[in-house]
């Protein structure tokens, strides 16, 4: 069975600083990887996804993520954080199981942005 680990429960960064959110996955084959963002009181919105091809994936809102097979990681990055990026971020892995794609979510990282 697949699993996802987001080791940082809470991260605080200053506005304008760079950001990296960590995600490690466990899956025997090549997984499908996602990053979602959840603003306060809202549902989840897809930021980006990866399955194959270029290991550096560009997403919405200026986010990017890099797939590193050797490290089983899919870390999310942004070069300059804006106050509106304050939200909770979820990494997820999709894997085949029982003939369908099962998606497993991490426990989330809450981002606080300070002026």
């Amino acid at each position: 069975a697949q699993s996802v680990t987001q080791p940082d429960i809470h991260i605080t960064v200053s506005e304008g600083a760079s950001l990296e959110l960590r995600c490690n996955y466990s899956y025997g084959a090549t997984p499908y990887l996602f990053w979602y963002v959840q603003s306060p009181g809202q549902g989840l919105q897809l930021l980006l996804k990866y399955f194959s091809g270029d290991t550096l994936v560009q997403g919405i809102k200026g986010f990017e993520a890099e797939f590193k097979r050797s490290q089983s990681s899919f870390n999310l990055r942004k070069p300059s954080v804006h106050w509106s990026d304050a939200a909770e971020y979820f990494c997820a892995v999709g894997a085949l199981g029982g003939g369908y794609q099962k998606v497993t979510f991490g426990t989330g990282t809450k981002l606080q942005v300070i002026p």
Partner: protein
Amino acid sequence: DVKVTQSSRYLVKRTGEKVFLECVQDMDHENMFWYRQDPGLGLRLIYFSYDVKMKEKGDIPEGYSVSREKKERFSLILESASTNQTSMYLCASRFRQGWGTEAFFGQGTRLTVV
């Protein structure tokens, strides 16, 4: 834009009540899901449906049931609500079981059982 609509943003119910959470999507998606979100636990899959009248148990189905009589609507039922079912419930839909298709989420229903 895909729209997934959950019928209530906030609900307060009493212990032992039968509770219905409704979810409607407008993009003809085959797959629909119910998740429960709790602090520190992330999203946990309760049930999903890959087509009308089809359902599969997720990771935490105990105390819940579901109904999918029409393609656009997926209902989560708490047969006898308990305080440990106080949580945020998220509905999602996805185009089909195709590899790598992403899910679209509703805004969530925050349920409090007293």
